[in-house]
């Protein structure tokens, strides 16, 4: 009898104890960053250090061939010394979620790709990131890759924490055939022309735009952000503000109103509630004439599992009306603190390899990805494989107005709030001003 009681009591005590240290370790977080997959793997396989690299750039992801080529190249170059083992985490949202939870428990894989998910700031808040500054300073070629834009994306308080793999120069694509059917012969130069063209397309029985609301409404917010950025100095300044807290500005409300009009008049049935994939599919199947997206999509235009033969011939590319393109290096790869210094070294070697000019040039040649590094060479080979890319790069060179995207500037978490409220905007349940108020409230409370 007593024994049971004793057993139960000690179990309860154990519970209390565990609870104590569980809570405690959660607070200190960073202290024990090594229990993660990377270190565990490295101890198992003798001399060779294994870098466990979870990535969403696998399977059907557009960057998958580039990443697998880089992994192969790296494993060959460092054979016997380092070895990358790819852990497939399909779906970028799944990946971001996984890394976020890993950050919260302080056990990150040695190398993390920041991408558009604000993972760097999150990891920095937990003091989990290795300062790369001394390594970059010691390597003149690496240092030359950092210009102002990539410093903004990858450095905080003058310290470099990450290295970009790709840039992001974004305009939009249109279907030349459908434009011609509506009697439009060139991409619009002003927003007035743009909306007049929308009317022409509608009149010709063509749905003008591919739009979405899920996952931050990527395509839709690109169009809208361009309207804000080209509305004058105030708008451009807004678009260049990191983590804005006030969305109740005239320029923003006006653009949101236009967005509402586009949802209600210019897009497909499945836009509301749909994700980027649905929008893209509508463009691939020639249901719609316009989609806003970056040049990484160009490779898909000739992928016959997605589109009909010859589709790539029909696609035109343009900068936004008013002479604007999005220009923002995508937050790069960073190295996380590990208990095993050798693993950290290996991780740095991997980041260096994956973000080298050669790697970026390879990504350009294979998939038409725009390099982030100013020293990477745009080869003729790439331009001839992807004629649209050359066309776009020359148009983009003339654009003086540039900014990051509307959603990439948002405080963490706001993107899903925005996404969740867009269907209400589209159905007219809330007004543009209401939506801006919701965004402002959230942004203010997150500060």
């Amino acid at each position, binding site marked *: *009898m007593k024994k*049971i*009681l004793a057993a*139960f009591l000690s179990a309860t005590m154990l519970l209390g104890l*565990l609870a104590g240290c*569980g809570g405690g*370790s*959660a607070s200190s977080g960073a202290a024990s960053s090594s*229990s*993660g*997959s990377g270190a*565990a793997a490295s101890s198992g396989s003798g001399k060779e250090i294994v870098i466990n690299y*979870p990535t969403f750039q696998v*399977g*059907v*992801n557009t960057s998958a061939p580039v990443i697998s080529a880089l992994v192969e190249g790296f494993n060959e170059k460092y054979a016997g010394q380092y070895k990358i083992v790819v*852990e*497939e*985490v*399909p*779906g*970028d*949202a*799944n990946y971001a*979620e*996984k890394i976020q*939870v890993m950050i*919260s*428990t302080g*056990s990150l894989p040695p190398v993390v790709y920041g991408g558009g998910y604000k993972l760097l700031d999150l990891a920095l808040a937990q003091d989990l990131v290795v300062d790369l500054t001394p390594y970059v300073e010691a390597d003149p070629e690496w240092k030359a890759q950092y210009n102002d834009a990539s410093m903004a994306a990858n450095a905080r308080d003058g310290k470099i924490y990450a290295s970009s793999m790709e840039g992001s120069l974004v305009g939009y694509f249109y279907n030349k055939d459908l434009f011609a059917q509506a009697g439009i012969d060139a991409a619009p130069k002003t927003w007035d022309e743009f909306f007049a063209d929308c009317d022409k397309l509608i009149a010709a029985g063509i749905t003008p735009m591919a739009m979405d609301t899920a*996952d931050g409404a990527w395509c839709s917010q690109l169009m809208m952000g361009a309207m804000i950025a080209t509305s004058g100095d105030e708008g451009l300044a807004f678009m260049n503000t990191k983590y804005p807290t006030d969305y109740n500005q005239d320029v923003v409300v006006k653009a949101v109103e236009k967005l509402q009009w586009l949802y209600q008049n210019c897009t497909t049935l499945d836009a509301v509630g749909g*994700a980027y*994939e*649905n929008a*893209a*599919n509508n463009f691939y199947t020639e249901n719609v004439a316009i989609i806003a997206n970056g040049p990484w999509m160009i490779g898909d235009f000739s992928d016959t599992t997605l589109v009909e033969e010859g589709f790539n011939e029909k696609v035109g590319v343009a900068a936004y009306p008013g002479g604007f393109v999005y220009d923002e290096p995508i937050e790069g790869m960073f190295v996380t603190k590990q208990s095993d210094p050798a693993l950290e070294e290996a991780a740095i070697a991997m980041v260096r390899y994956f973000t080298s000019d050669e790697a970026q040039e390879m990504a350009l040649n294979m998939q038409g990805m725009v390099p982030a590094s100013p020293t990477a060479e745009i080869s003729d080979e790439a331009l001839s494989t992807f004629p649209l890319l050359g066309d776009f790069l020359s148009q983009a060179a003339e654009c003086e107005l540039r900014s990051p995207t509307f959603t990439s500037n948002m405080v963490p978490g706001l993107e899903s709030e925005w996404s969740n409220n867009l269907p209400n905007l589209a159905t007219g349940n809330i007004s543009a001003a209401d939506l801006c108020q919701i965004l402002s409230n959230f942004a203010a409370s997150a500060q």
Partner: protein
Amino acid sequence: MLNKASTPAEKIVKVLGYIFMAVCLIVALFPIVWVIMSSFKSNKEIMANGLALPTSFAFTGYQEALKIAPILKFFGNSVIITCCSTCINVLSLAMAGYIFAKKRFRGREVLYAILSISLMIPMTSVLHPVYLIINKLGLYDTKAALVLVYSALSMPMSLMILRSTFEGIPTSLEEAAYVDGAGFVRTFFQIMLPCAKGGLASAAVLAFLDGWNEFTFALLLTSSDKARTLPLALSYFSSQFSFNYTAMFAAITIAVIPSIVLFAIFQEQVVSSMTAGSVKG
């Protein structure tokens, strides 16, 4: 009940009953039939008319689904994880259920009540703590993590079922074993367990279904192909390839068929002990 001549009112009730049965059956089966049917249509057929029958039985959707997501690998993981967790669940709760049913000790009802509380704990409320614990144990992204969580997942149900099963076994059997000189452990494994076969099987089926269908923890506690389970294969299609509808419908079909087959085989078992368990609860 068909032996009696029925009044007109009773006839109407009977007809209404049949209509009601038919409606329920259609409501329950239509979505699944629709998905299976759509998995044989091409993307264009699906987009053109959501209701039309497939023009041919093409298995391309299944081929693509298997290509896009490593469904077979996930299938294997699901089998291993769920079988292990089911065994651990049933064995450990059979031991506990036996004690609760046949032994008297102070605090028995209190302990039983505490263990049953888990029925009312929504697992979503403890996602983060469970993740912390799994990580502290060094089990992150291992099959063991899911085995551990799934073993506990259907704990209250198994406990109820197995307790009532052991309560239904006459104590005289047990006493006879002791008289024959069998010890506690031998009595349990050689006399009691075989008598409780029915209860064990139903607890096992329920535990298996719980583990087989679980989604949230699988997503949270694993990251690589080596530990991920079948319900997650569907997540490939919700984002990555959401417009390859044929492949998506094929994947859904692959994910639901095992559950249906398992249930069809063991349904009597499931029904009888679900009842036995829940009466006690």
